[in-house]
């Protein structure tokens, strides 16, 4: 490419000053960036207002685009289906036969459950969601894992509320705008969720690793009891997350814990529910499992 013509401003004083000024602004901009970075690293919520305003402004178009996402996924699923159809049908029929039996059993269990709960005068553990909305975008270029939710303070969404999909925990609300909110996904490096093993309640923390997996860190050190396939659910310790929401399944055991795959892939979920904050001081706690050591740690 040829040298650009406007490199040398010539003898015009005005042109020289203007070139000089543009360099001054450029370096001042870099300096300003460094200052902003220091401020925002020290205080994560420092520029929440700007970001919320920006995501509010783009929320309508993003919501419209999110509607098309499920259609787009269907297209790929259809193409892939041509190659796997035969085996898929065979497997599905086998699973269906099993599922019919399980369904009958589950209905019986659910009935028994309802009866026992009525006996104990217990409320249903799951709260009514504050709002149900789509995830309308995520920071897919950054290493931080945020998603944008298509509902904001106008729909009653408040900072800190847990967000879940039918498959499990998605994250919690970090910043709210009028009609959009920023959600910290559980796979983000800064997200810490108190969890317990679903089978026996071994307490642990699930921290995001930024690459789509979770690091499970056990609270009680010593022999590592985890095995691949162990499912973890939220324990509700420390408040914030409602207990008993599915979080992840262990895929690989490490020295002091395990690596887990989150159960709810936020990319595959159509709608997510925003739940009210979980307060441990609520009367339900009395009937919950015996207090886990996580509460003491927090």
């Amino acid at each position, binding site marked *: *490419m*040829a*040298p*650009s013509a406007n*490199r040398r401003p010539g003898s015009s004083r005005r042109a020289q000053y203007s070139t000089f000024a*543009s*360099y001054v*602004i*450029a*370096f*001042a*901009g*870099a300096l*300003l*960036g*460094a200052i*902003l*970075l*220091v*401020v*925002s*690293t020290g205080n994560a919520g*420092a*520029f929440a207002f*700007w*970001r919320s305003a*920006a*995501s509010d402004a*783009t929320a309508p*178009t*993003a919501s419209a*685009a*999110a509607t*098309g*996402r499920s259609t787009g996924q269907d297209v790929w699923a259809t193409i892939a289906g041509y190659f796997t159809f035969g085996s898929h049908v065979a497997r599905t029929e086998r699973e269906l036969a099993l599922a019919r039996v399980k369904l009958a059993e589950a209905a019986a269990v659910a009935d028994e459950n309802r009866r026992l709960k009525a006996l104990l005068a217990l409320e249903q553990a799951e709260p009514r969601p504050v709002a149900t909305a789509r*995830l*309308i*975008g*995520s*920071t*897919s*270029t*950054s*290493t*931080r*894992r*945020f998603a*944008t939710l298509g509902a904001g303070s106008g729909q009653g969404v408040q900072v800190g509320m847990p967000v879940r999909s039918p498959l499990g925990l998605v994250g919690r609300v970090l910043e709210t705008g009028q009609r959009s909110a920023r959600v910290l*996904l559980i*796979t983000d*490096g*800064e997200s810490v969720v108190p969890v317990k093993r679903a089978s026996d309640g071994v307490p642990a923390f699930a921290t995001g*690793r*930024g*690459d*789509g997996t979770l690091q499970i860190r056990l609270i009680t050190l010593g022999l590592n009891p985890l095995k691949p396939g162990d499912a973890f659910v939220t324990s509700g310790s420390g408040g914030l997350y409602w207990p008993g929401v599915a979080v992840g399944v262990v895929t690989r055991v490490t020295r002091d814990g395990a690596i887990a795959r*989150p159960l709810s892939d*936020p*990319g595959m*979920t159509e709608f997510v529910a925003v739940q009210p904050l979980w307060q441990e001081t609520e009367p339900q706690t009395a009937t919950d499992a015996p207090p886990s050591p996580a509460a003491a740690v927090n």
Partner: protein
Amino acid sequence: MPGPFAEPLLDLTRPRINRAPSSVLALALPWVLVMLGSLSPTWPIIASAPVLPPLGFLFLLAWLHLRPGLFPVWAGLPLGLFDDLFSGQPMGSGVLLWSVATIGMDYLETRFPWRGFITNWLVASAVIVGYLVIAAQFAGAASNGMLLIAMAPQLAMAVLAYPIAAQLVGLVDRLRLIPVREVG
């Protein structure tokens, strides 16, 4: 830059008597394209790991290569600020990195005025990889060595996406210079 453009489009961009490009279009389109690239986090892709190339940054690099001097040296300040609003990075990371990249590319332009596309691609690859890795450090990945491995697909994708971004920028460059304004 040669490109697979349709013949009517090339015909449209041919200079004609009593027609001139609209100055608003010619000046605004580059900024608009870069800002549209920065809006990619609002696309309906919910990713659980960083996957998409930083499109706004790729477009900026491609413009700086294709038309040196079109963007002022301070363009990194407003464009980086806009990118920060959506990217999820801590505020200021984009302002700093985009400013430094623009200043650096301006310096490179004065030092090595004659470059081919391959050279541009190599330069852009180095800048993109540096940008993504430093941005990950700013976002707090320093404590997590695994994250750099998780970023590898994104790095590869960003480097491979650069020629496509450059093609698109070339196309928009033709669009912005379409003589639509009637003169005299």
